[in-house]
């Protein structure tokens, strides 16, 4: 439900730090292209996602409106019409369709095609509002490693990133929110824009149910007080309010035949996610609910192949979806 009938909200989900510049570039380019088309526009990061941390799911936003934006000072896009996802495992760990407007569009950077992406969204309550799913292979936008993710509150209009024009082209094609011509006035890499525009794979969601857009009505009821002193988790337990498995793009897979139980991975894990023994009685196990896939374990492992990284998208489950 939009807060304003004519407001178009674009939400970009990205990985903290490594993709922050890309996300800001996208948000700024979309807003700038919209401004060229005479719209009132904004671009901003989700403040609660800042400071961003490496690989943490984050959001950047653009807003476009034919009239002045009614609520310009707000922390997040509550009801996006278009969602861009810079890295496909975010679909597994995040509710990327949260608040989606009916007829919404999802643009994903992946080489796995739209059907595979649709399969990742089956449990999301707003799936019936998704009309179009677009995929484009931009590659790993975090590589080559771009040092110095720009500072908070900074704008990256000067930064040219290889992945940005391709994703913007795909965004324009799938959503039509801004034209490719307007984007060409913003992005110098016209080839990239056209590549994205022409090569994007589009899929109409078979489960889409058309409905009339409505305007948000404030929820009834009042909030309650919150205490600043909270109980600590149990020793050997978990902090249930900050489940971090959705950071993970690469999953550590232990080959028990090769593992010597030297415990180097265990002692080196900053997230206490290697268990010796594992909870279900294995000699060693990874806590996939919290594992961020940072790779420290397979880097410190002295035995070739005893822990190897596998793409998280090769697996169906084991990621608790965050709902914020």
């Amino acid at each position, binding site marked *: 439900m939009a807060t304003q009938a004519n407001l178009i909200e674009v939400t970009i989900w990205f990985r903290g730090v490594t993709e922050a510049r890309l996300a800001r570039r996208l948000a700024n380019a979309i807003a700038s292209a919209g401004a060229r088309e005479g719209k009132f526009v904004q671009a901003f990061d989700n403040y*609660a996602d800042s400071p961003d941390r490496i690989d943490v799911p984050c959001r950047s936003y653009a807003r476009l409106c034919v009239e002045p934006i009614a609520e310009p000072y707000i922390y997040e896009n509550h009801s996006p019409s278009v969602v861009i996802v810079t890295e496909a495992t975010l679909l597994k760990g995040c509710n990327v369709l949260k608040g989606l407007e009916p007829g919404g569009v999802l643009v994903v950077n992946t080489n796995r095609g739209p059907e595979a992406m649709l399969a990742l969204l089956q449990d999301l309550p707003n799936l019936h509002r998704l009309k179009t799913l677009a995929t484009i292979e931009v590659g790993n936008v975090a590589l080559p490693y771009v040092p110095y993710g720009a500072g908070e509150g900074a704008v990256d209009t000067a930064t040219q990133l290889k992945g940005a024009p391709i994703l913007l082209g795909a965004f324009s094609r799938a959503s039509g929110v801004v034209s490719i011509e307007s984007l060409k006035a913003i992005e110098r890499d016209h080839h990239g824009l056209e590549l994205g525009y022409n090569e994007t794979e589009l899929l109409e969601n078979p489960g889409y149910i058309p409905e009339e857009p409505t305007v948000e009505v404030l929820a009834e009821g009042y909030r309650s007080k919150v205490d600043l002193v909270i109980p600590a988790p149990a020793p050997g337990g978990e902090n249930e309010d900050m489940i971090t498995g959705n950071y993970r793009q690469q999953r550590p897979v232990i080959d028990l035949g090769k593992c010597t139980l*030297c415990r180097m991975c265990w002692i080196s894990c900053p997230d206490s996610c290697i268990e010796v023994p594992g909870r279900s009685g294995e000699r060693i196990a990874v806590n996939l609910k919290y594992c961020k896939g940072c*790779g420290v374990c397979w880097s410190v492992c002295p035995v070739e192949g005893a822990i190897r990284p596998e793409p998280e998208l090769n697996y169906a489950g084991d990621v608790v979806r965050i709902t914020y």
Partner: protein
Amino acid sequence: MAQARLGAQKPDKIEIADYEPIRSMRNVPTTEYYVPGHRTCGGCMPALAYRLTALAAGPNTVFAGPTGCMYVANTSYLCGPWAVPWIHTQITNGGAVISGIAAAYKAMIRKGKYDGEYPNIICFAGDGGSSDIGLQALSGAMYRNHDLLFITYDNEAYANTGIQVSPMTPYGAYTTFTPPGKVVPDAKPLFPKDLLKMVAAGHPAVKYLATASVSYPLDLMNKVRKALAVKGPTFMHIHAPCPKGWSFEAHRGPEIGKLAVETGMWTLYEIEDGHVKVNVRPRKWRPVKDYVATQGRFSHLTDEMIQRLQAFVDAKLADLGLEAEPPTPVPPVAG
């Protein structure tokens, strides 16, 4: 091993309780007191430092956490990963808050108001909360002979605010407050403070100080145990690579921490009752250039700047009796 005396006069003998050293990986306790579930970066080495400290310290521990990543990232939002009591402190005052906690336990136990055992009281402060805005409180805590441990986890910048220079930032490093530019090509032109030496030199109550690194986890945990066993104030300075701040791939933290020790950018040593003991001394020092090459924050450095950094490292090693051979000639200081 180098034997040198560092610091002011030490009038009292060191008093150290029995403690159980961790002799091998098998001996490390497996009950976590810093549990999964914190919004730190993937590959965050300060988080690993926290975890190892909590593992070594065990259940009878109180943590104080000054503002910094290890407060904000760990407690986002209204939750936290510690299975022992933890209190937020301002970035300014970690040393003073733990002083108060220590004084309270001392008084309450003496007056029969607390019937438990005196706990391990640990401040886990960043380099800014220790060497910069928190220095005064750190000094106060070290001076007053409270029974507590102050740990600096050093990721060499104000990282929580988006990587700004701190006194611990190495010469030549990029931060968002020290960008390399035409006028200041070497980014950070200053050399860092020597925090451990400052604490050692001016605080006669401190009988035990140690540096540590997340890349040497058993050494780190044993130092935590020893520091907690020593009666009175103790200090640890833990090197904790920061993938976001230093710009390296998230999985490389342990490798880069090790490289720091192998190049002399970081040295593992302890000072017990005034005696310096170096814990890890490579047979041959690797050039600082190898370390610098691993991190984006140094990517703008010229050979001359790297040489200047090497000379600083050589001098620091010489000060610990660990001369590099042959010593690097000191390049002229930029005008």
